[in-house]
């Protein structure tokens, strides 16, 4: 099977989602808020993207949408769980969360965002040539 553009989009999305999950573990290891939804959604999203890499099937359109949505869920919860950290960093106070963790929230936002965009890109493209 020749590799299509969609394959690479799905690959990038899956790899970045895995990186995002690793960052999330670093984040929780440093006192960030644990949320099992982030973990479950990321793993499910990666599985969807991995399935897309297997090539064009009748259900790949739905699988692609599901992957993008799941990764968007992971992204959003990883950020909303850290809103207290971000609020503290912006206001220069230590009240809602841990300001020193805000950069990890931003990092997760960036990584997951690219992952989601790549997942959407995969939806627009064919998964095999």
């Amino acid at each position, binding site marked *: 099977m020749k590799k299509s553009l969609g394959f690479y989009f799905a690959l990038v999305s899956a790899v970045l989602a895995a990186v995002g999950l690793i960052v999330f573990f670093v984040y929780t290891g440093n006192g960030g808020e644990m949320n099992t939804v982030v973990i479950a959604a990321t793993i499910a999203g990666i599985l969807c993207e991995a399935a897309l890499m297997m090539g064009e099937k009748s259900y790949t359109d739905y699988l692609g949408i599901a992957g993008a949505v799941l990764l968007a869920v992971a992204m959003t919860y990883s950020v*909303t769980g850290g809103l207290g950290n971000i609020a503290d960093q912006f206001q*220069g106070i*230590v*009240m809602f969360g841990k300001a*020193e963790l805000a950069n990890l929230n931003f990092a997760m936002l960036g990584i997951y965002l690219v992952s989601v965009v790549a*997942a*959407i890109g995969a*939806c627009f493209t064919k998964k095999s040539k």
Partner: protein
Amino acid sequence: MWSGLTAIVAVLLVISIIGQGAALGYADVINNMLGIDPVIIVEKGEAGDTTYFKSSFGAFDDIKAQEAMLKASFEQNINEMREGAALLYNNGVLPLKTETRVSLFGHASVDSAYQSSSAGTKAADGGLNVINLRQALEGQNFVVNPTLWDHLKASTVTRNNGAAGWGGAGVSGSVANTEDPIGYYDTVKSSWANDYKDVAIVTFARQGAEGTDLKMQDVDDDGVTVMSSLALHQNEKDLLAMVRSEFDKVVVLLNSPNQMEVHEIIPYCDAILYIGFPGHQGFVGVAEILRGTVNPSGKLVDTYATSSLSAPATVNSGTQSPLYANVDHINATIGADEFAEYMSFQAEGIYIGYRYYETRYADYVMGKGNAKSNVGALAGASEWKYENEVQFPFGYGQSYTTFEQTLDKVEVGEDEITVTVTVKNTGSVAGKSVVQVYAQTPYGEYEIANKVEKSAIQLAGFDKTGMLEPNGTETVTVTVDKYLLASYDYTKEKGYILSEGDYYISIGDDCHDALNNILAAQGYTTANGMTANGNAAKSYKWHQEFDNEKYNLSPETGFEITNQFDDCDLNYWVAGSGVYLSRNDWAGTYPVAPTTVSATDAMLDILDGEWYEKAADAPSYAEIAANFGKDEGITLAMMKDVPYSDRATWLKFIYQLQPEDLPAATAESFTCPAVGNLSPAFKVGDGADSVGGSLPIKINVNGEEVTIPTTRYCSKPILTGTFNPDLMSGRGTAMGEDALWSKFMINYNMGVNLHRTPFGGRSFEYMSECPIMSYLAGELETVAMQKCGTLAGPKHAVGNDQEFYREGLSCFFNEQAFRETTLRAGEGSIRAGQAGGLMQSFSRFGLKWCSSSYAYNTTVLRNEWGWHGCIDTDAAPAFDAAAYVDDSGYKNHSVEVITAGTQEWCLDGAGAHGMAVLKQAKETDDGYLLQLLTEAAINWEYAISRGNIINGMSATAEFVEITPWWETAIEYMVIGSAVLTVACGAMLVYSKMGKKKEQ
């Protein structure tokens, strides 16, 4: 294509739905940031003049009035530095009358610490209205070496900034490698070789932060050698040595609210000026002092010890706070979210700051209590000796002139002592002189037998002269409240006593000088080991009989004052586990190693935080709820003059609500929500040296309309270091006006915690190591602020003396120490100043979170002090009422908190904690909990009715809630993306079916 489009809109739908929930949880923060007032006042009748609290500068829509107010605030800021900066050392080089061309060294010169990370307006280089050191010096006609300035600015090295690293427990606070290695200056030495050589000014900074204490065990710049963060690090030493070798005149500025180890600096310089943090424009005062246009008159409010680690409190607190010995068992049993890992046994008792050093000195002179022992002395010392241990005592500060103070008269009355002092300027330049009044109370057999500890000297009062010209004189009268001389006997009388024996009042240039004057009156001289002979004429003695009644009933309520904090003593839980420092045996009781214990099962039951049980005689929910929902036509404006004691009217007012409205009265945040239709949403100020936020009228700067931030004043120890009651009141007035213009109901400010050690991350916000200074200064600031129509909310009242693991730290103490230090520091603002509210601390008193302590919140604050302000937790954000019903973390035992007497939760704009209480009240049919919510609402509404929030409200005004635009926008986004998702999804299915047909 439809697959991709569906993915896009579905992703948008997910983000908007999840984001909506999160945004609503932070609605008050978002509204605050966007400047949205979610409630508007609608007038239904004839309003009349409803500006009950007016600015002394004019109308709130008059830009000239705003400008005048701002100008006055900067004048206050500068005056604080003019009178609060303390000249510690001067070999005659200051003032710099003729020197012009100067070189500035040290990163704090070009990147000064204006404040630490905490609440309030942030001043920074280049900020609107901020004057930096260079600009201030240029304002006094100094010319600053530009090459050196730019070189320092370009360095990649930055000074310590108090930022906490990862780890969550505020474990940073290191000063290592915060100055460049000396080689960095090689390329710019030519810039001062022949010019800019009149004087070198070196600035050193130390900066903790909210959540970050300075490290007691820091590393040197080599990354290996362990040392105090308040000691000079190698790069700093190298810098000083280089500057000393190249300049004839070297002046050092201490840009630090924490007491640096200055003995290391003195050999390399000609003068040292302590400047703390300057806020917006305090550097103007610094430059004026250097130039000599202002004569320094500030005094230290902390002891500068030779070793910052010699204070007994350092053994068990700050970054040396020990873990419980069985911390793993604790976490496994009650959960890590109870934050019960660290403990701090306050072995020092009452001996904080000068109370330790001076008392041990007195005993050294009198040959008592094994004071000479080397236990607690500098490393390697054969005996403890005051002159080796202390560099500059509390109250110390030089002037460019000399003063002579004469103790004219002391009148001891039933409740007050009046001290009259005549001050004469005996020098050649005009200046102000501080009159410091100290006291000594007896430490005799009764005290020894019953563990009543006594400081050999304690601040009792102070005042400051006006500007005295050479040979000018002024007579100053200081009144001392006798209550401040009483001791708490926690073992025998279990109440306040006035000890039997000789009492002394003394004046002095600092606390050590005043003690020497008392020792002189007692017949001691340098032959007994005194550092200098005292002047007995500056002290006064009288005899007092033992009195165990005078202060044992509350004058406000008649409530009997007796032990409430026995269970905060570690020995209550584990017998013999803790030894308190006693002047009866310095050698045997000075703490030499941290005290830690394994938490017993009984202790775990309390640490767990869940103990409330519904009382058998509790009324039913329905019984209490039946009172609500009765519209009496009473508005908030009608309540503004109704006294708190008129319970019937206040209940009628509150019963107009529904029970479901009550949680809003427990919700304190940057924007507090409306409470039913009784009171509107409003904002609060937060910060000890700045209320935060912006002034209402925009101004034009370089063609742009900008808002003006409220003023950041000097760090608190500079304010208290003025020893000037007028400036302390002035701070209250200035911040009261800031808040009045900003429409803040209350300022959570004051800073009533102690500098228990020199390492406190928030020493810049807290007044002093001396609880009496905090008491007296706090009262002055509170009263002045509240006259402006802005309530004062002392924080963190009380017991937040460290930042390291401040959340949940178990502080163990005896009741004498607690009442005479921690509690006394807050008592001035709360009880004497009648503050409108307070914010508690994160600490545990013994095993209970401060907010869950009935002894503190109800017995002391309400019953003993008769105080009826609103009691607010420290930050306890909550966004989901359902998550806070049960045992889910040490701040989330909402029912235990409200039953202790706490009534509001900080940063809980959604009222989630109150909702949890209401839910439990309903589910368990507990009318008592509903009664407590009612009481909380009374205190909250009473506070609101006493401040500027009622400006603009007539008796006929109504409140109308509006939906902020951003909530509407998110709502539309959710609906829009949902519709598009369905549509795109349908098109996807349709197109796939079409394709299938084609195939």
